[in-house]
């Protein structure tokens, strides 16, 4: 150990230690973060930008510590929102900055360390995935590295939580003993330029403004910092000197400044590695990645294999998911009967109706999809953790690019099949704002898991068994096709401009561990359940109220009975419309009550608008529910019919639908539900992710307009043939 290392605990600050994890994408930073903080973490967004901020807490040598997982960045330049966020976090002067690098990619990943060192931070270097490096015959002299760098260096295996104790000790050491000015040696030319700039840097509350990092940014002419420094007192002098130094270096080396500076960083890394690294002549363990790639991204086999993988995931999601879905369904049914039994048979209690029809019916209809969601995210997390996702982007980019999208748009859109909300959140991997907005806008056209309930209800109601699978397939195909066409239209109209860089790293294949995949899966499952427990519960109650109130004072059926127009008998004959059973009378009352309610009135009011599409007020009422959340369409239809038809929900909803509407209306309905009005949660998340209401409203209005047009076309043209 180096002489710079100071015994830990005694020197630790009394307050909470603030730790920041920085590193390249794919360096295993997040699994290390999970290993450090366990369940004590919090995911939120950075203010104003769409970058996720993961923070958590843990104890380090009996001292409480907060840990922030920075978004993965290749460098600290400020081209992407992730990089800007990372810089801001570093400006906030954390106690310790843990730079996490992939031990197999030291040459490139250590560049970030050099930049972090320049900021004047208090670093700890964490050589992650050290097991792979050791297997490949790479040895690092940790003690020598610590001595050369002047701060702790540890080896870890993040996804197995190995070395976490070492890391904690190293953090404690670093926090206890602020490292001296370990200035980076970047070569004589660069060091002279920095020495000339250092005394001229303006004084500022944020320490980073006095750092070599700032001097470097000014030297390369970084637009953002140049503007900030220009506004400070004494800013002009340092900028003039930066320009002079830049010109001097460019004239002397004959390369432009950015390449020169980047070269300096790589030079530092090369020099460092030459000292501390020894490499056995063992074959690269990662050669196995090349062998897998030879098959998985094969010129001809690549796409068919990808299609198969996707098929497998969908099979897992929907076929395997059926089993637990059955359990949940019976559970919900049991709950409904149990709660129902608390009231006497035939009771018209409002409270009972609220519990059974509103809450259990509404939320139950949503929770039923939990297995689908969990399994889909299990599949996607698996693909992500193995490294196949990047290959998918490679395989699909040509197609996606043709439609003005990006290979990386594919993954969010795929996620959109599960739920649009995480899909839109996943557009964060897209660096270019324009690509991101386009992907977000068309993403709701990917038929989400919630809409699958709708298809599961409607398709068997309107189509013969042989037709069901092809119809389901077509719905997905229509959604995808429409999304691509719409993306192209957007790209050619309001979203014109140059392409964002596609340049993407293809990480080596790794076996996902039992720690990481379930973690991701449960995170999603929890998000979904929370949505069911909060938003959807509230909306279910709201919608139940809309269908229950106001109550009519008088029922037409009662008036007709009183006038003797119809008679009530115990066993009415089906042929005589003038005799009704008690049950039928009750049903009539419910139907009238619904028509009289807020929902019924809205449905009625909008009926003329939707009449050309073949919809009646009941469908329209249910579609109002679909805006709240797509899955509520089914729940709402259930409520509408249970209230309006029979006292008990014995009648199969499908049979009623098949009785009331033809196949053409069914088709028109499905098309409308596929395309129109992304649900409230989607609109809200689009607003949050795009940063503007206008995009969310364009999505809402645009898609609804297109849906109306399409359904109108299908219904009106279809009527000519039916």
């Amino acid at each position, binding site marked *: 150990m180096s002489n710079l290392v100071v015994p830990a605990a005694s020197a630790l600050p009394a307050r909470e230690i603030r730790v920041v994890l920085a590193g390249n994408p794919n360096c295993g930073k997040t699994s290390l973060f999970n290993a450090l903080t366990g369940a004590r973490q919090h995911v939120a967004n950075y203010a104003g930008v769409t970058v996720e901020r993961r923070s958590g807490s843990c104890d380090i040598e009996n001292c409480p510590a907060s840990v922030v997982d920075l978004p993965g960045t*290749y*460098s600290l*330049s400020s*081209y*992407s929102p992730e990089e800007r966020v990372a810089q801001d976090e570093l400006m906030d002067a954390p106690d310790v900055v843990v730079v996490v690098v992939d031990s*197999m*990619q030291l*040459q*490139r990943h250590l*560049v970030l360390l050099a930049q972090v060192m320049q900021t004047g931070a208090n670093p700890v270097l964490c050589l992650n995935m050290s097991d792979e490096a050791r297997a490949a015959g790479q040895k690092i002299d940790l003690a020598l590295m610590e001595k050369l760098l002047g701060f702790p260096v540890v080896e870890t295996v993040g996804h197995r939580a190995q070395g976490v104790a070492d890391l904690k000790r190293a953090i404690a050491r670093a926090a206890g003993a602020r490292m001296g000015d370990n200035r980076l040696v970047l070569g004589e030319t660069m060091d002279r330029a920095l020495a000339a700039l250092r005394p001229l840097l303006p004084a500022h509350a944020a320490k980073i403004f006095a750092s070599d990092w700032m001097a470097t940014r000014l030297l390369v002419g970084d637009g953002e910092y140049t503007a900030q420094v220009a506004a400070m007192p004494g800013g002009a002098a340092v900028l003039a000197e930066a320009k002079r130094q830049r010109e001097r270096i460019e004239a002397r080396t004959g*390369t432009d400044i*950015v*390449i020169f500076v*980047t*070269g300096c960083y*790589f030079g530092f890394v090369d020099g460092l590695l030459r000292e501390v690294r020894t490499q056995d002549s063992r074959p690269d363990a990662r050669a196995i*990645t090349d062998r897998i790639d030879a098959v998985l*991204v094969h*010129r*001809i086999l*690549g*796409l068919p294999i990808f299609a198969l993988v996707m098929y497998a995931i969908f099979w897992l999601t929907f076929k395997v998911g059926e089993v637990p879905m059955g359990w949940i369904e019976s559970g919900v049914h049991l709950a409904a009967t149990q709660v129902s039994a608390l009231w006497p048979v035939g009771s018209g209690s409002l409270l009972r109706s609220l519990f059974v029809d509103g809450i259990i019916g509404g939320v139950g209809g949503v929770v039923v999809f939990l297995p689908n969601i969990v399994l889909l995210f299990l599949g996607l997390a698996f693909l992500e953790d193995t490294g196949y996702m*990047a290959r998918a*982007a*490679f*395989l699909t*980019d*040509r197609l996606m*690019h043709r439609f003005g999208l990006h*290979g990386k748009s594919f993954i969010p859109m795929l996620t959109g099949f599960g739920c649009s909300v995480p899909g839109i959140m996943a557009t964060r991997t897209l*660096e270019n704002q324009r690509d991101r907005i386009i992907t977000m806008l068309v993403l709701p056209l990917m038929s989400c898991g919630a809409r699958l309930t709708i298809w599961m209800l409607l398709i068997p109601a309107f189509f013969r068994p042989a037709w069901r699978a092809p119809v389901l397939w077509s719905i997905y195909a229509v959604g995808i096709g429409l999304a691509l066409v719409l993306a192209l239209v957007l790209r050619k109209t309001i979203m014109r401009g140059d*392409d*964002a*860089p*596609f*340049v*993407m*790293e*293809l990480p*080596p294949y790794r076996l996902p561990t039992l720690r990481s995949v379930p973690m991701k899966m449960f995170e999603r499952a929890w998000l979904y359940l929370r949505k069911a427990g909060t938003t959807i519960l509230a909306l279910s109650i709201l919608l139940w109220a809309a269908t229950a109130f106001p109550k009519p004072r008088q029922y037409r059926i009662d008036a007709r009975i009183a006038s003797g127009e119809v008679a009530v008998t115990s066993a009415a004959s089906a042929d005589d419309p003038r005799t009704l059973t008690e049950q039928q009378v009750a049903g009539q009352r419910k139907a009238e009550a619904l028509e009289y309610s807020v929902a019924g009135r809205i449905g009625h009011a909008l009926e003329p608008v939707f009449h050309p599409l073949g919809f009646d007020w009941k469908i329209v009422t249910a579609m109002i529910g679909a805006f709240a959340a797509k899955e509520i369409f089914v729940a709402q239809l259930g409520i509408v019919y249970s209230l309006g038809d029979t006292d008990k929900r014995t009648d199969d909803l499908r049979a009623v639908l098949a009785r009331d509407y033809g196949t053409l209306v069914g088709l028109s309905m499905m098309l409308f539900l596929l395309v129109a009005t992304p649900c409230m949660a989607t609109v809200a998340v689009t607003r949050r992710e795009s940063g503007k209401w206008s995009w969310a409203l364009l999505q809402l209005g645009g898609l609804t307009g297109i849906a109306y047009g399409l359904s109108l076309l299908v219904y009106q043209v279809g009527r000519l043939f039916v």
Partner: protein
Amino acid sequence: MSSSLEDYLETIYLLVQEQGFARVKDVAKARDVKAASVSIALRKLAEMDMVRYERREYIALTPDGEKAGRRVFSRHRLLTRFFEEVLSMPQPAASEQACAMEHSLTDDAMDRLARFFEFLGGCPTVIESFHQCPLAHDHGSVSSHAHLPGACAICAKKQARASISLADLKPGQGAIVTKVEAVGALRQRLLDMGVLPNTQIDVERVGLGGDPFWVRCQGARLALRRSEASSIAVRQAERDTPKQ
């Protein structure tokens, strides 16, 4: 000082150099103007303390005037030689161009031109190869500037090698990066990924239909589009093996 006054000073300077004296009529003859115009100009120059009348009709330059006249003349001589010797212009045209330019160039520009001229003098092969190049005689389009057709044997060879981009490579081929021509975010990303001048880059595979490219650089596998690959200038390595 106006250019016409500078011309007068130059003329007087030349006359004094050649015949030892200058008279109003000599100046009028040399400049092809009326004697009256010469008198007006001389009055202005006298006011500026550049010339003085020695005797009737005889004009002498003050030390300042002589300096100014010499300056204009030396500029004229250098520009004329440049147009003649380097740009191969015929005599009267070269002198005319020199007259037009000698007043407008700043001292700094003149100084740089002079040094360039001096450099060419010490390096005659450069002028020779320029004169041999078809470009030197082509009076037509300027569009051929992009690819100098055999301008200089060494340069041509260099250019031919440098004009290959990563997008020109086939799977299995490798090369050395010579220049990253991309700008903005793409440039930064490429540099961050280690795509720097003088590093080895290998194309491992290309997507169906020729896009995107799958390359290996500094141990990392990268995917980039054809358009992006074409912004990376490379020079072919000796051997075309992709393995490091």
